[in-house]
């Protein structure tokens, strides 16, 4: 039963990932990305990683996918959203993909015999013990780096002082 769910969800993930690349309309690609991320969350759930499942949906489907949709909506009229599928860099892209695929295959090979717990115990408490206990220092360091990135993004995206009439203009 869990295996069936896993394979169905994996198929959904892969097909929607293909859709992200193949749809001609940028908004359809963005929606497909949302479905793909939700499929990944489903794969987590079928491997009984409950906390990862919920946070994947919360952050990627509810946050990142929505932000990407937002960008696509702001980026112009519907007719301008259709882009070419292929440009001159396709060979380089293919090579990069091949290298990445090789790397992933090697990583998978190292964990080939590991079987995920089926319908196992909830993972939240163990995760919390690890993150706030043994791994507290790396956890805090990553938080610090993220905070620095956040502050940096705010500083770089801060516009020059705008003239008075546009200062109070509001697009939304």
């Amino acid at each position, binding site marked *: 039963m869990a295996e069936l769910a896993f394979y169905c969800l994996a198929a959904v993930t892969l097909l929607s990932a293909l859709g992200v690349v193949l749809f001609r*309309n940028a*908004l*359809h690609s963005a*929606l497909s990305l*949302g479905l793909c991320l*939700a499929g990944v969350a489903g794969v987590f759930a079928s491997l009984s990683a*409950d*906390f990862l*499942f*919920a*946070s994947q*949906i*919360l952050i990627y*489907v*509810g*946050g990142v*996918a*929505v*932000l990407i*949709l*937002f960008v696509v*909506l*702001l980026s112009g009229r*519907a007719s301008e959203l259709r882009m070419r599928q292929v440009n001159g860099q396709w060979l380089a892209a293919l090579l990069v993909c091949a290298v990445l695929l090789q790397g992933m295959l090697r990583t998978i090979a190292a964990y080939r015999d590991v079987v995920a717990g089926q319908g196992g115990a*909830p993972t*939240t408490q163990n995760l919390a013990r690890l993150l706030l206990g043994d791994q507290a220092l790396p956890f805090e360091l990553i938080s610090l780096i993220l905070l620095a990135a956040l502050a940096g993004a705010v500083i770089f995206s801060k516009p020059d002082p705008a003239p008075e009439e546009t200062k109070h203009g*509001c697009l*939304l």
Partner: protein
Amino acid sequence: MSQPEAAPKPAPAKPAPAKYPDPVYNTQNGRLLMRDTRYWPTDLWKNPWALPSYRKAAVLLAALLLGAAAIATGVGELSRWGDLLKQTLDGFLDGKGFPTLVGAGVWTLIKVLIVLHIVIISPIFLVWWERKISAHIQTRLGPMNVGGWHGWAQTIADGIKLLLKEDVTPTVADRWVHRLAPVVVTAPAILAFAPVTFGQDLSAADIDVGALYIFAVAGISVIGIVMAGWASGNKYSLLGGLRSAAQLVSYELPRSFSIVPVLMFAGSLNLTRIVQAQAGYWGGIVPRWFIFYPVVGQLAFTIFLIASVAETNRIPFDIPEAESELVGGFHTEYSGMKFSLFFLAEYAYVLLASFLAATFFLGGGAPPLPVLGFIPSWAWFLTKALAVVFCFLWFRWTFPRFRVDRLMDFNWKFLLPWSFANIAFAGLYLLW
């Protein structure tokens, strides 16, 4: 020159005490047109009890509440009946020689159907209640005719009307996205009800990351709203979709962070455990609900309530719909059942927010006084949730709409910092 002495003015005559007008009848057929409704709260505010119908209504309301409490007490804990049903089902299936998987499947199906119908049927009541409350806030009567008693069947009639309406898709619309959008909005609203604990041992799926799951799944609906806004091929809808994406993603943050103190106190994401952590009474009187934790509890509850109103796109946060400036926002181009799916999702989220407020802050199914423990937990839970729903409806009909930039300022510069500060307060509380 001396003023001629004015004749002493007679004391101003007291206005005659208001007499209730005689009933008005239709001269043609003699039907009663108006009984005593010409004097409505604004006239009678000083002494509403003088109105016979007011006294009658108060007695009726008290009788209804007492009757409901009596019925609830008679029924007892629903989880007991659920166990009985499960035993009967298992016995029946074992007798027929089915494998245990079938029993589990049927039982899951029953639970799914119950939760589904809670979501689908509750708007029938909530819409009627909302119309009545809005009417009484605006000194109107609201629906009075359909069904006889105070227009109770009005929403059912409206639902049938919506079912029969023509389903229009604009020619410029992106057909598939337009068609899928209501589904993407509604499906997460139903999914999010799975871990809600309706009372003692009453939840469809008692999952360990329940609170996180609810917030995560409820967040998916934003995508549906953006899809609806974009696929309609209409600038007002697009603006509505954009505003909605910005607003919902923003208000999700203080909403999630406001319950972090609750999670810290309870030490779990599981809704059942959160309810258990609120059991008991201080000094035998004040319940140990999280809303009664000094400062932290009230602050968290206020932020949660405000952010929940914003998450459900309701006035005063209905900028994505804003019918007076955006025609109707993201659902302008929807009609019939597709429109009503958006409506269903809105009411489902109102209900979900109320259930969550009752679970996180009002002690779930715990009675407010130990003496009242004889009324079962699901009745208390429902009472608390409906009280929060009433707040939602009340806000909608008393506050004016926010301006867009103020809406965002309010979230990012007020709610979010205070929800962070509240987490710090909760940490201090726990350390101390």
